């Protein structure tokens, strides 16, 4: 399965692609820069009833209503206080019904780096984690390990908008 996602990555960017890296606790994560709409400071959100715990609520982003996801809670990390320096990265997922925007709360944005697809290592099979399929792979940048995320799988399913979400989940469950 991991090889399959790697080949997907190769199709998307034959040689290298740009990745926005950000920090969450002690880890560094990366997402395809083309998916990033903007980076903005934290502001209070409006809660949505019956939403998963890591969907904090919605924000007004220049007139459109955008859900905000707390990645720390999504990854079951220790919760951090939201302060003025907390950052929201607004990204978009592409679904059958069109583009959907959402924001993720992260500790801080680090850098934009070029990643050569040949350097991407498959994520290790951890066995117990069924939801591991949102990892595209690992890449080492300046001695640090960066975890590349598949935003469509990670967020699309949470928002209940990705038709393939459950299908993508099942092979992972099978693999586990």
């Amino acid at each position, binding site marked *: 399965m991991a090889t399959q996602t790697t080949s997907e990555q190769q199709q998307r960017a034959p040689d290298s692609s740009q990745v926005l890296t950000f920090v969450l606790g002690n880890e560094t994560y990366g997402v395809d820069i083309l998916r990033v709409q903007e980076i903005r400071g934290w502001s209070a959100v409006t809660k949505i009833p019956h939403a998963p715990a890591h969907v904090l609520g919605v924000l*007004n982003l220049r*007139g459109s*209503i955008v859900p905000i996801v707390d990645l720390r809670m999504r990854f079951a990390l220790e919760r951090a206080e939201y302060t003025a320096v907390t950052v929201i990265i607004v990204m978009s997922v592409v679904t059958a019904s069109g583009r959907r925007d959402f924001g993720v709360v992260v500790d801080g944005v680090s850098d934009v780096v070029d990643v050569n697809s040949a350097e991407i290592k498959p994520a290790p099979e951890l066995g117990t984690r069924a939801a591991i399929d949102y990892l595209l792979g690992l890449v080492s940048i300046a001695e640090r390990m960066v975890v590349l995320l598949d935003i469509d799988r990670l967020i699309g399913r949470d928002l209940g908008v990705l038709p393939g979400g459950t299908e993508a989940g099942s092979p992972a469950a099978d693999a586990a």
Partner: protein
Amino acid sequence: MTVDLTQFHAAFFEESFEALDAMEAALLKLDIGAPDPELINTIFRVAHSIKGGSATFGFSDIASFTHSLETLLDELRSGGMPVTAAVSDLLLKSVDVLRVMLRAVQSKQPIDAQRVSDLQFDLEVTIARKRESIAAETARAPAPALTASSDGVPAATADAPAPGTEARRWRIHFRPFRELLARGNDPVRMLRELAGLGGLEVRIDIQALPPLADINPQECHLSWTLEVPGEVPEEAIRQVFDWAEGDCDLAVERVPPAPSTAAAADAAQSAPQPQIPADSTRSPAPQAAALEPPALTPAPASPSPSAQPRPEATLSAPGDSGSIRVSVEKIDELMNSVGELVITQAMLSQLGAQTEGPQAERLRAGLAQLERNMRELQESVMRVRMLPISFVFSRFPRMVRDLAQRLGKQIELKLTGEQTELDKTVLEKIGDPLVHLVRNCIDHGIESPEVRLAAGKPAAGTVHLDASHRGGNISVEVSDDGGGLDKTRILAKARARGLIGANETLGDAQIYELIFLPGFSTAEKTTDLSGRGVGMDVVRRNVKELGGKIELASEPGRGSRFTITLPLTLAIVDGQSVAVGSETYIVPLISIVESMQLKPTGINRLSGRGEVFSFRGDYLPILRLHALFGVEPHTRALDEGLVVVAEGDGRRVGLFVDDLLGQQQVVIKSLEANYGHIDGISGATILGDGSVALILDVPGLIRAADMRAAA
């Protein structure tokens, strides 16, 4: 009920010109010999819409012309006539003539009746020829008709160049409809009034007069050609016929003091005529036109310089509303930008209030000014898109009256929910489908008074149009209390047309589905109202384009009801803001009955059924919003907060909230665009401070609470 229809003329012209462009494009794409049926359908629909619109507004010349055009197109559509180059030419010419007619009506100029009737004649001839012999002649037959027409058009317009110049006579074609007398109009009085304007020459046409034995003295069978000499303003002539408008065919045109008419005296007067255009030699048009009458030869060139300048001159005049079409996205962008500006301004105001120093006062004054301007700007931008549905509804009283009269039916039109506001783009597109539906109701639905009385129903049928906000949607209902849909006839027709197999059996819903197919109609014969089967497929197409759906319910003998449900992509709702803990929610005012503070004695606890309170003699359940939405409230004690009595789906509940904040109009934004549907929430809006508030969907909330109670 009187409605000034003229306010909708601009929209009609705009749409018609656009439709004609589309028709022209489709005609040009049409392959001779092997036409694409979809293209023919497109062309047909354009003709049909223009016919419908012009009939509604009483432009009978256009309606009559498009009817002929439509008949020809119907032949093409059914494959009864091949699409030849000649036919295609004829259709393109019709587009040109329609444009000229529309432009003439728009600028309130007389229609070039000769040119129109010539072309209409060609259309009819083509249809008639086809009916006589489809066989060998098809290739050649329309061609002579065409050359005749191309001769005919310039010939007709050749005597028209004078309209451009200072004509000395008015010629009026006045053909009253039969019921003119019954409407309280008296032609004799009109003629007398005309004669009062100056001289009057009257020629009467008695061709339509039936034999004496058959004459009904209450009906008018005569028509007149009238000539008024002298410098009479057109307005004065039109005024004479003001009251008869819609009850007659009327054409007023300027004519030169024709040598053929034995008006020798006029000829002497007309001698100074060439000098009049000579005074205004600055504009080349009158010059060319002045030269025209003696030299009749270069015919095709003459109509354009003489006929065109006038309408164009009036086009740029203030009479034209000068509207432009703007894409929805641009308006959305504009609205979002203004929303951002309002928030930035609020932030600045806050900062300004804290500033101290010599400049602070001036800063605050400037900010106050900015706030006012911002508010105005925001309101104007909002207004750009939103209009009450009465804009569409108000075309119906006239239409229903006319149709009822023509069909000999008694119909009462009921309009409700006219103030429901909806998106301008939605409004524009909902008009035509509604016209079709109402026509269908009147033509097919409502029975004649005799049949109704026999069935024990009141002689007058009712057509009801209703609009309302429902959940996150706008729903428009068109219902009648007529005979309902005839399922057996629909089935028989569908079998005859080969739409379904002979032995196929269908459920009710599937049968109703059949009437939405292109070209389907159960009408016995084609009237100019409906029955050509264009209506319903256009209706559904338009509704689908708006992302909506159309549903049909029908009961034999009781009538049928069409429900169009449209999504509320962007609509404004009057809302009451309520506070629950740190959150703000918007309750649509339309669902609120009353807001009140409960006394501890008024609250009862039913075992297993939650809390209720007494309200006007009823016990209503209390829905605690904080519990439903998982919010930490300021108070959980029912007598400390407030209860908003709200109604949804015919049921009332008390919504328990911390406090009421204020009423405001809010713009509904979709939550589903980026997130998904939430039970009990119809959307979200952006408050003045830039934060998001959720809008409650009261019926959905009640259902959600039911499910919680059941679980």
